[in-house]
């Protein structure tokens, strides 16, 4: 049984402009000791999904199921959730400067995490805090433990955040874009650190990012999200070598130097859709180079495809249309040619009509 099993997670926010449908029937599993990478553009619902698991989304309408070690998280009351937060499932966030309290010393904040869940003396908690800082390779931890967040560099701050998150040896660590705010070399170091910690502590991890290239180093499997739904899911080798979903294909094309970037496919054009008025059928169809009439009409199910074991994709292309080489793209193109009719013609006309204004129309 999986450590975490999410089924049909649906999250929406009622706003004055309309209902924002941030997550629409998302399902995934996280195995104990394994790392799942969740990848998608901005606004695809990655953070909202993660926050919803821990009830950290005030004002959200949440349905579906999220079973963690046999417990249904979505049914827990706030006081029950508190015992899970930090202790069983810990979370780190994108911007370590704004995510640490500016007025308290780093050590104090780590001690607070420890003492919230375990009966520990102040001195013992402080000793553990120093050890944790050492564990995440912060130099001079005895000194840094009494530093304020603003006195540390960006990378050090995120290491301190990681130390705090690991303080109670959680079974699952959710890292929401842990390196986006940092520069490239620091990103790689932190990913390495996260991977190392994950192996050392035997915990499971969800690493959220919009950079597919970044998860390669740590993720066992990858879930690609688009407009609040799972687009494709597979182990990371399959995702990189035999993607099925054109959106994944586009993400790969945007990684400099990656296998798919040499092809003729350009990185994905256009903007992510509005989550209040989501395009019909496959939400990706306004931007998809392979869109067919069926894509405009019907939402594709998230079903097994032939890239490998456990490879799932939500796309109307045939199950064997996988791969990143030119031949695969030609095969896809040939398949869709006979399946484009009036719906696609209308779509093209709408896009062409919108082009002089510079905007891309969808829906």
């Amino acid at each position: 049984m999986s450590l975490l099993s999410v089924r049909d997670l649906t999250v929406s926010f009622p706003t004055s402009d309309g209902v924002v449908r941030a997550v629409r029937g998302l399902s995934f599993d996280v195995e104990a000791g394994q790392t799942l990478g969740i990848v998608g553009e901005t606004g695809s619902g990655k953070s909202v999904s993660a926050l919803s698991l821990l009830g950290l989304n005030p004002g959200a309408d949440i349905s579906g199921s999220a079973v963690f070690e046999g417990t249904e998280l979505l049914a827990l009351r706030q006081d029950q959730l508190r015992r899970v937060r930090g202790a069983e499932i810990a979370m780190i966030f994108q911007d370590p400067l704004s995510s640490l309290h500016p007025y308290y010393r780093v050590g104090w904040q780590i001690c607070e995490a420890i003492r919230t869940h375990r009966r520990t003396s102040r001195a013992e908690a402080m000793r553990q805090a120093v050890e944790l800082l050492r564990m995440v390779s912060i130099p001079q931890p005895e000194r840094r433990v009494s530093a304020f967040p603003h006195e540390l560099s960006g990378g050090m701050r995120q290491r301190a955040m990681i130390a705090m998150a690991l303080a109670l040896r959680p079974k699952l660590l959710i890292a929401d874009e842990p390196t986006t705010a940092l520069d490239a070399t620091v990103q790689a170091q932190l990913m390495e650190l996260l991977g190392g910690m994950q192996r050392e502590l035997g915990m499971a991890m969800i690493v959220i990012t919009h950079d597919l290239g970044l998860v390669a180093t740590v993720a066992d499997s990858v879930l690609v999200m688009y407009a609040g739904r799972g687009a494709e899911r597979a182990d990371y080798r399959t995702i990189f070598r035999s993607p099925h979903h054109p959106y994944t294909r586009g993400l790969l094309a945007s990684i400099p130097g990656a296998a798919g970037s040499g092809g003729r496919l350009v990185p994905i054009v256009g903007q992510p859709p509005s989550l209040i008025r989501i395009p019909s059928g496959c939400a990706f169809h306004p931007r998809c180079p392979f869109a067919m009439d069926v894509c405009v009409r019907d939402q594709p199910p998230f079903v097994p495809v032939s890239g490998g074991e456990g490879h799932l994709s939500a796309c109307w292309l045939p199950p064997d249309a996988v791969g990143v080489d030119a031949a695969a793209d030609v095969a896809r193109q040939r398949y869709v040619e006979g399946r484009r009719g009036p719906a696609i013609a209308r779509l093209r006309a709408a896009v062409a009509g919108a082009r002089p204004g510079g905007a891309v129309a969808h829906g």
Partner: protein
Amino acid sequence: MIRFVIRRVVQGIVTLWVIVSLVFVLFFMTNPDPARLLAGKSATLSEVASIRAALGLNHPIWQQYLSYLGRLLSGNLGESYKLHEPVTTLLGQWVQVDISLAVGAGIIWLILGLSVGILAARRPRSVWDRSATVFVLTGLSTPTFILGLLLLYVFFYVLTTHGISIFPGAGNYTPFLTNPAEWARDLILPWLTLALITAATYARLSRSSLLEVLGEDYIRTARAKGLSERRIIYRHALRAAITPIVTQFGIDLATVLGGAIITETVFGLPGLGENVVSAIGREDLPVIQGIVLVAAAFIVVANIVVDAVYAVLDPRVRLS
């Protein structure tokens, strides 16, 4: 920190010097003839002349100005034209009333304002929040003298006419050292008058400040750590939200210390505020000048203290 304080104190001294000079210009140079004023309507010309000589008003302006500064520096604020007592002695008596007023009212408005603000911020758009809004609007739009008179009417007049005399009427003031219980009893209505109105500002300020902080990323981190809502509000959110409140508190306290004119007048309290009004009425220049200087000094000092406290509260503020 020390360098910071020294720099601010020097700035404060310069500010006070500017105020002192303005006072000199306003009160001594624009005044037609203080000697005549002092001598009274029936004085003869020679009497006026001798008073003028005694006050040094015959000397050139710059000499008058320098000797004026010299007197101030030696702590001599002159003598009241009408009360015939040194101004410093008078100020010493009157300021006690304002200290009493400020301390009591300050505590009440801080506790009341913060409580209302926290209650409102914890449940935005709830009944509590809406009641808090009513409280704030009422407080902000009620003139001090109306509230003062209303409190006097209800707690003094109505109660006393029903045979219950808990609260004294206007014109009572017992120094703290004479009888602390009487002191508090005499001041409770003035305290409430000042505090209820000022608390509105604090309720609004603490609500908005807290709401802003509650949306910060580090509050989400605190939740993700599994902290209780209580701890999140009081240890994390309030800790950050309190800074603007402290600043406001320092300035408001200093303002009351420099004289709460309306409250003192309504309740007949012999503080700086009431006395500046009567000094203006009888054109008692040394007294007016003394009160203006004291009020200004309170504000200047409060600003320095507030900045220092700010630096203590927010570790990110670098003092240099």
